Every structure is written in C-alpha cells, then in structure tokens.
C-alpha cells in the first residue's frame, strides 16, 4: 500500500510538525506530544482536554481552539495516548477551574485517561471525565467493552467547549457533555478496510462487492458483512439501527453529522445526507443543523458514519456559538 510518509515510525511526529507549521493558532509540544491553543487558557475557564489514537484527523488536534478544545493528546496510530501526555496537557491548560477529559469509550483510552486523572488529582487538579459512547453497532454491553465513541465526540467537544467558553463550571461542563452524549447515536458502514502505516496492508480483506456494516473507527471489522447495495438501502438500515435505539418523535430537532471515514468522495457523502434527510422528513424530524465532511476518520477507509444528536434550544445555541479551530470554524 502506497503511503505519503517518510517512515512508519515517524508518522505522528512528522504530522505534528506539519500541524505546528500550518496552524499558528496552535502550539505543539513535539516532545510531550500535546497540542494546545497558542494563547493561554483564560483564568477561571474550565479546560477541555481530549485525545486518542492518531489516524482520526482532524479529530482531536483539529478541534483545538477558541470555542472547543484547549488541548489534544495524539497517540500512535489507532493507539491511545499515554497518561503522561494527558497529565502534561492538563498542567498546561488548567486555569483554576478544573479540567474535563473527553474520552472515547475504548478500553485503551479509558484506562490511560483514568491513570492520567488519578495523577492529575494527586497534583491537586480537579478533573471530570466525559465518556463518549454513541455507536449503536455495539449493542450488548454485558458482552462487550461497551459502545464505542465515534462521531458524537465532535458534538460533545463543540457543545461542551462552547459552555466552557461562556464560563460554565466544571460540573456544568461535564454534565452538559454527558447530556450531549446521551442524546447522540451513530452508525458506520465501510466500503474498504484501512491500512495503518505500521502494518502496510489493509486490516481486513473486503471483496469488491461487499461492505462491512457496523464498523468502528480503527479498521476493526464490523458486526456483519453484506453485499453492496444502493446508498438508499444502506442508509435506511443504518438509520433504522439509530432510530431503533433512540426513537425520534415528530417535531424533534436534530444535529446531523454525515462523516466521511477518510476515503470517501464528498459527492457520495452528500448522497448519503440526502437519504438521511428524506428519512427524517418522513418521520417529521427536523434537521436543525448539519455537517458533511471528514471529521472523525479512520485513515484511508472508504465509508461513512451517520451521527444524530437530538438537540434542544440550549444545545443548539451552544452549537451555534463561535468556534475557531483548524477543522471547525464559524461565527468568528
């Protein structure tokens, strides 16, 4: 598999150098592997720190900036960061009001962030953790590590980030993040596998006429393999899974994210969005806000995830609040 890299061992370091060079609004500590805003956290503002394996760009580093995250900790490709990174990030961005860790629900992320929270608390920092677990493809939590955190991470980071910017307390920001997560559901379908630089070949083999249904964002195989069908039918089954888990009533308002997994043309993402819009219209559900593009990716995987967040006026106002990050920017 061809890759635009220098060496498999250097992909994260080299990409961080590029992020630092491209975005003067960010500050990149290459040694600690922490991305922060170039400006210091305003005194009294709750700091938001997230992180996870690399390979999901722009998540999380692309969401650092006013109105969203204060810091992001990139791990190796598809590998959670280590506790020292989150501790270093928390020390830099904490400004007297505490730190919220936004953690996607994967065993590695959960364990490393838990260790980081304990270390930070030992140093006297107040830490709250918001766990994101929106993926309805993982159904039975007694048989699994629980639902995965996927597209709703963007919803949580944007809305909790806006609340922190407005001066909400540590408890309030964390509670809001949990509320957004509880209101959100996602489902993903892959047309191809993806190739990590270290492995150099696709994580699984997918025949030309088959798709993986219910994939996560790490190239891990999904729950079932099916024949490729028209986009309308694929979207219908994904939406059925989402709406079976989180029923929507006529009159409900939702934020919709149709997210590319890294290797899907925007043209196809818009086809998917059109199908999502038709299905929601038929149920009387109103799309209040929408986002289409590559936000939570899985390297070069072709495929799409659909995320819905049922939003009330408070969540929509926070969604609309100004944000100025490399990957999400409006109202500024």
């Amino acid at each position, binding site marked *: 598999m061809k890759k635009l890299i220098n060496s498999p061992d250097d992909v994260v370091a080299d990409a961080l150098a590029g992020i630092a060079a491209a975005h003067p609004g960010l500050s990149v500590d290459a040694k600690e592997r922490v991305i922060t805003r170039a400006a210091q956290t305003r005194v009294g503002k709750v700091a938001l720190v997230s992180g996870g394996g690399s390979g999901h760009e722009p998540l999380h580093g692309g969401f650092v900036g006013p109105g969203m995250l204060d810091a992001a900790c990139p791990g190796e490709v598809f*590998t*959670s960061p*280590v506790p020292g990174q989150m501790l270093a990030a928390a020390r830099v961005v904490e400004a007297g009001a505490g730190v919220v860790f936004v953690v996607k629900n*994967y*065993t590695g992320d959960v364990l*490393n962030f838990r260790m980081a929270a304990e270390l930070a608390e030992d140093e006297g920092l107040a830490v709250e953790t918001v766990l994101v677990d929106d993926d309805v493809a993982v159904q039975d939590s007694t*048989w699994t590590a629980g639902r995965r955190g996927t597209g709703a991470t963007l919803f949580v980071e944007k809305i909790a980030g806006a609340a922190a910017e407005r001066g909400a307390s540590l408890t309030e920001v964390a509670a809001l993040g949990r509320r957004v997560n509880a209101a959100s559901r996602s489902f993903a379908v892959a047309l191809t596998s993806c190739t990590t630089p270290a492995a150099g070949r696709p994580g699984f083999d997918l025949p030309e006429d088959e798709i993986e249904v219910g994939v996560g964002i790490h190239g891990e*195989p999904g729950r079932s393999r099916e024949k490729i069908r028209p986009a309308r039918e694929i979207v219908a089954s994904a939406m059925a899974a989402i709406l079976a888990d989180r029923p929507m009533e006529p009159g409900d308002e939702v934020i919709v994210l149709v997210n590319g997994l890294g290797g899907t043309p925007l043209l196809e993402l818009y086809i998917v969005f059109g199908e999502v819009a038709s299905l929601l219209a038929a149920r009387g559900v109103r799309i209040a806000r929408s986002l289409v593009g590559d936000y939570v990716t899985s390297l070069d995987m072709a495929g799409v995830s659909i995320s819905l967040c049922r939003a009330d006026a408070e969540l929509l106002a926070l969604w609309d609040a100004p944000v100025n990050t490399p990957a999400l920017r409006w109202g500024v």
Partner: protein
Amino acid sequence: MAEGPVLLDATLARSWMLAMASAVDREREQLTALDSAIGDGDHGANLQRGFRAVAESAPDRATAGAVLTGSGMTLISTVGGASGPLYGSAFRAMGKALGDAPADAEQLGAALAAGLAAVQGLGGAQPGDKTMVDAWTPAVGAFGAAAAEGLASAARAAAEAAEQGAGDTVPLRARKGRASYLGERSVGHQDPGATSTALLFRALAEVVAG
C-alpha cells in the same frame, strides 16, 4: 534437588525483561496478524516500542523489584492502548510484591499473583473473556502449584500453562477490549493479549532454566 537458580535477583529480572523484548521483536508479526483478525493490528508494534524502552532502562535498576516496577512505569509511559496500562500495572504490582530482596519461587509466585490481580483490577476481565487473563490465570496457578519444585520447574509449568491458555482462547467469544465489538465473529481467533502473556511466561522460563 532443584535445577537452575534458586532466587530471582536483579540480574535474572533484567534477563527476563531482555528475553521478553527479544521475544516481542521475534513475534511482532505474529502478534500483528492475530490482532488484525480481531482488533486493529497494533499489538505487536505497541509492545515492541514498550519492551525496547524497557530493555534500554532495565540495566539501571538495582533489585528485582525495582527492575519490574521500573519496567512497569516504562510500559505505562510508552505503550498506550489497553496493553500499556495493563502490563504496566501488572509489572508495578509484581515489583512492589517482590520488594528489595531476591525472591524464591514461593515469593515470585505471590508476585505473579499480584500481577494478575492488578490486570483484573484495572481491566475487569474474568477468565473466559478472551483476554490476557486467560493466559495469566492458568500460568499463575501452575507456577504456584509447582513452586515447591523450584524456580525452573515452576516457570516451565507456568509457561506451558500460559501457552495452553492462549491457545484455549480460540473458541471463545470476546467480552472485553476491542475484539468484543465483533461478537460471534471473534470466535475462531487466538487472543493477541493472551499470546503476548504466553511470551512473557516463556521468557521467564528460559532465563531461569537450569
């Protein structure tokens, strides 16, 4: 008369860490292949990064307990993923249990049990969940049962039990970690974490062999 060394001291503990680092270097591709089937294919690369760092730092420690505790800290700060905290906590717990004095087989057996307890305390996995616990549990049991026969015998029994336990994960359905997302599709594959745990016990058996 027991064969091999009677006590695990700092020198042997360092040899164990170096042997594990070599084993991970050697088996990296196999761990990657196993993890690609039911995970995301990075177990080999992550452990290699961690144990290479362990191999570089191991010579600095003065006691067996310090070698293991220090190795645990190195793993936590270099591996990431779930295996970093899990192996890291296990090594720290083993190091603390060993303390400053060289350990006989009974003492090492207790330290290994403390390592397993740390893995289960942090990850919450039970035997049968298709995780590294499925290799740790029989290995710790076999080591304890054979401890009276000396280090070499106990470690050999533990290595065999760990390898058996890793092999026995093939028909299991994963209930923890990333493989659990696959549901029934995790059946038929050997767990990569149990496999690397078997490497750890085999490495111990090699360095204390008579």
